[in-house]
């Protein structure tokens, strides 16, 4: 059943967003560094290869180091619109032919945009990998941007924004809380962009953006699956090698200054259940505290024996679901998130109090040995389960590469294993403080007309207790 809570909601919408799950899962612990091969073409294009011969399949992925963090005021949504336009063809390939060609070869393709990156991938049979190589190499430099295609595709993106955000109360809350928690750093605006900005983008903006960011020096390839690396590398060199390096774009962004006190926002709109989000500024994996936050998130919401589930769902019966989430592999420091969908007839203030109690407990009481081992076991098991998929393996390598380096994956399990009860107390005290947080609350309004009011207190009576 689709139950929305903060980031979980995000996962629900975007299947790829098993991601924060994927992140706890990864490549075989044993000798990743030995199995992954990295090289760079003379023009600066980095190539990351992992052979995996369990099935005659390959995932071929091109990652560009450009996302909404690279955008500017009044030009938000540019990265994502360009991602859509990447399917509008080159001199060789007609508009919207790209996916048709991949599908005729028995493959699937898609693309995605995030704060930090824009990525394109093809999943196909190993004997078809050349098709993906040629098409991706072609559109890295030879995209044809036409006014007519742009106008139509902009309408598609506006529909996408309506679907994802405008008609979704929780999505609006997330957008609002990001715009409050971040004031300087570009994580502040939504990846899809503000509707007004999408409406005023110009074809010239796209051309300049493509010119700046779609260069060998600002991209890398990740290929995982059934191939021989020498042979594949020859093919890649042939297809991508002739492009000139391009200028490395400036990737420096201003740091978000420390927060000087709690911020609080409300979104009031027609909705069924209240939602609460609490977000705290935290470091990414450049700082070892980040791995401790991974363990904290697991203690709080890993499984039905976790603290939030036991306390908020079972004992206090306040919420339908509660989640803790941490973005380990963002390029710049991001947020640690607590979220909950509040049950009908329950007070949001009670939920907030319960969250505070759980945070306080993390700060005050050392976590018991059994509970800590449980959290680590969960992270390790997920780590192994996630290796079932070459697509996930490629995603994991690429996301670490975006944040720091794919090599950081090797630190994941050892870093998790060495977390101590004292670490947890220290990190909870350091980051999970009221002054460092933004609280966002969705307050449901009753419908104006057309249907009966969502049940407030009356639902309570209907509930069987």
């Amino acid at each position: 059943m689709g139950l929305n809570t903060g980031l979980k909601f995000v996962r629900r919408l975007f299947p790829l967003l098993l991601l924060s799950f994927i992140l706890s899962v990864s490549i075989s612990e044993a000798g990743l560094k030995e199995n992954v091969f990295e090289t760079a073409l003379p023009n600066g294009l980095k190539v990351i290869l992992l052979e995996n011969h369990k099935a005659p399949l390959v995932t071929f992925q091109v990652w560009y180091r450009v996302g909404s963090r690279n955008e500017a005021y009044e030009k938000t949504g540019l990265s994502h619109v360009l991602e859509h336009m990447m399917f509008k063809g080159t001199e060789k390939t007609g508009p919207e032919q790209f996916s048709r060609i991949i599908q005729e070869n028995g493959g699937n393709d898609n693309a995605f945009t995030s704060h930090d990156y824009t990525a394109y991938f093809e999943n196909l049979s190993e004997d078809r990998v050349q098709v993906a190589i040629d098409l991706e190499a072609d559109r890295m430099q030879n995209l044809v941007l036409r006014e007519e295609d742009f106008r139509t595709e902009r309408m598609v993106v506006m529909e996408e924004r309506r679907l994802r955000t405008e008609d979704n109360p929780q999505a609006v809350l997330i957008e609002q809380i990001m715009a409050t928690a971040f004031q300087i750093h570009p994580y502040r605006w939504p990846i899809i962009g503000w509707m007004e900005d999408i409406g005023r983008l110009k074809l010239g903006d796209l051309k300049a953006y493509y010119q700046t960011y779609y260069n060998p020096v600002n991209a890398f390839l990740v290929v995982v699956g059934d191939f021989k690396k020498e042979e594949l590398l020859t093919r890649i060199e042939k297809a991508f090698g002739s492009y000139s390096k391009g200028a490395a774009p400036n990737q420096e962004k201003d740091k978000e200054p420390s927060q000087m006190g709690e911020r609080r926002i409300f979104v009031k709109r027609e909705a069924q259940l209240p939602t609460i989000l609490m977000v705290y500024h935290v470091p990414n994996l450049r700082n070892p505290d980040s791995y401790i936050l991974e363990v904290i998130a697991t203690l709080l919401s890993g499984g039905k024996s976790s603290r939030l589930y036991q306390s908020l769902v079972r004992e206090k019966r306040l919420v339908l679901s509660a989640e803790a989430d941490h973005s380990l592999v963002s390029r710049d420091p991001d947020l640690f998130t607590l979220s909950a969908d509040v049950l009908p007839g329950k007070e949001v203030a009670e939920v907030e109090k319960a969250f505070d109690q759980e945070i306080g407990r993390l700060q005050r009481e050392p976590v018991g040995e059994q509970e800590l081992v449980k959290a680590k076991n969960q992270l390790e098991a997920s780590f192994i389960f996630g290796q079932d998929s070459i697509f996930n393996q490629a995603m994991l390598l690429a996301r670490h590469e975006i944040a720091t380096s794919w090599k950081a994956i090797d630190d994941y399990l050892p870093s998790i294993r060495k977390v101590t009860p004292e670490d947890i107390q220290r990190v909870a005290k350091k980051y999970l403080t009221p002054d460092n947080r933004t609280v966002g609350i969705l307050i449901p309004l009753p419908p104006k007309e057309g249907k009966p009011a969502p049940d407030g207190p009356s639902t309570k009576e209907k509930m069987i207790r």
Partner: protein
Amino acid sequence: MILLVRLFIPHSLRARRLSEPEAAFPACPAGRRIPNFRPLFLILTLTLMWMGLPVGSLQAMPPVQRMTLSNRLVLVASGEHSLPFVTLQLLVDSGSRRDPSGGEGLAYLTAKGLLHGTSKRTINQINEELDFLGASLNSSSGRDYATLSLRVLKKDLEKGFDLFMEVLTQPVFPEEEMKREIEKTLAAIQSEEDQPEEVAEKAFLKALFLNSSYGHPVEGTEESVPKLKREEIVRFYGSYYHPNNAILAIVGDITEQEIKAKLVPQLEKWPKGEIPKVPFITNFEKEQKTVKINRPITQANIILGNVGVSRENPDFYALTVMNYILGGGGFASRLMEVIRNKRGLAYSVTSFFDPGKYPGSFQIVLQTKNPSAREAISLSLQQMERIQKELVSEKELEATKKYLIGSFPMRLDTQGKLANFLSQVEYYGLGLDYPEKYPSLIRSVTREDIVRVAKKYLHPKKHILVIVADLKEAGLE
């Protein structure tokens, strides 16, 4: 972490496909959603002679063993040893189509209730133990059947399997816990009101299937769920949860010897039972019907369709090809071309059949800004009519066949997908050689077949139309 993908499939469709037959049916093409691309396993270490069945020879399908236990439980297994974990999926023929009238949600609540306590362990003990193993054990129900699935590290297989068997054969459905589950289900039903696509989907199924067994939501309704009683759950469980009404798929790091030595003895203790015969009520709307639901939203959520087919229908393969061309083929489909690529009217437009043991539905699903609703509906109807009248081009047909056949291996490329696939192949009696037969089933479809099935199974004149929108803005008041 937030990502925008070029195209994703709306939640309601995904949810249904996950709880219902998925892997045995055409893979979602590119763009419909992001596939989880995982390796499938060719290297086999299971001996080839178990039950004397031939091993699948096609690369798409790892070897599979099938056996029937003394209590009539059918076991399908496929070993692969590169990763140290095991996936079990049990399918019990006890889906919501068996819900009594007025007791909608009973099958769902029973499936959920399995995990709420056993004669040996409380719900908290079960959850604590599972989390300590890092394992997952889930139960749910769809229209046709319920599933219980376990994923556990190889080293913990015995503990995990003990839990699996305990919740399956000794659940106690504690009164207090079932009340909680009812409360949770009701809140979830309420929260689905915030998702226009869910609202549309429920309205569509109700309008199409009337009072037939597929007409109500699997999780029940606001009216029916509060009335469900523990005794009914216990009775429902006692009626249907028997080995002779179930299929167990076992996939991953486990050998035939281990299955026989460690799993079979416990499985055989599960007692057989007499399964009640419940008639399937077939009654669907045969005339054109429009349902309009007013909401203060920016997009019209539209479902247009009619009754579909059962999985056993011999036209299934011709329909698969036809639907790919019409609206199932992602960016290769006509609806996508006309509505998204040419006119920019929608981000997502798709069509599908959702066949079950009995005929399901055919649906075109799209979202467009309110003022474009009429245009998008009329374009969709035009495409339904066009594929009924004109032969598709040779080129379209060939491209479709290449995709469906070529992408087949990706439908079996994780333990979870393979377990789901195997249990469904068994459920629908497709035969373990299905992956080998599939290419020829698809190849044999002709252009004339497509016109024939389009005429027979698409009803543009007698469609069911559901619109959830700001009706005033959509000009549909």
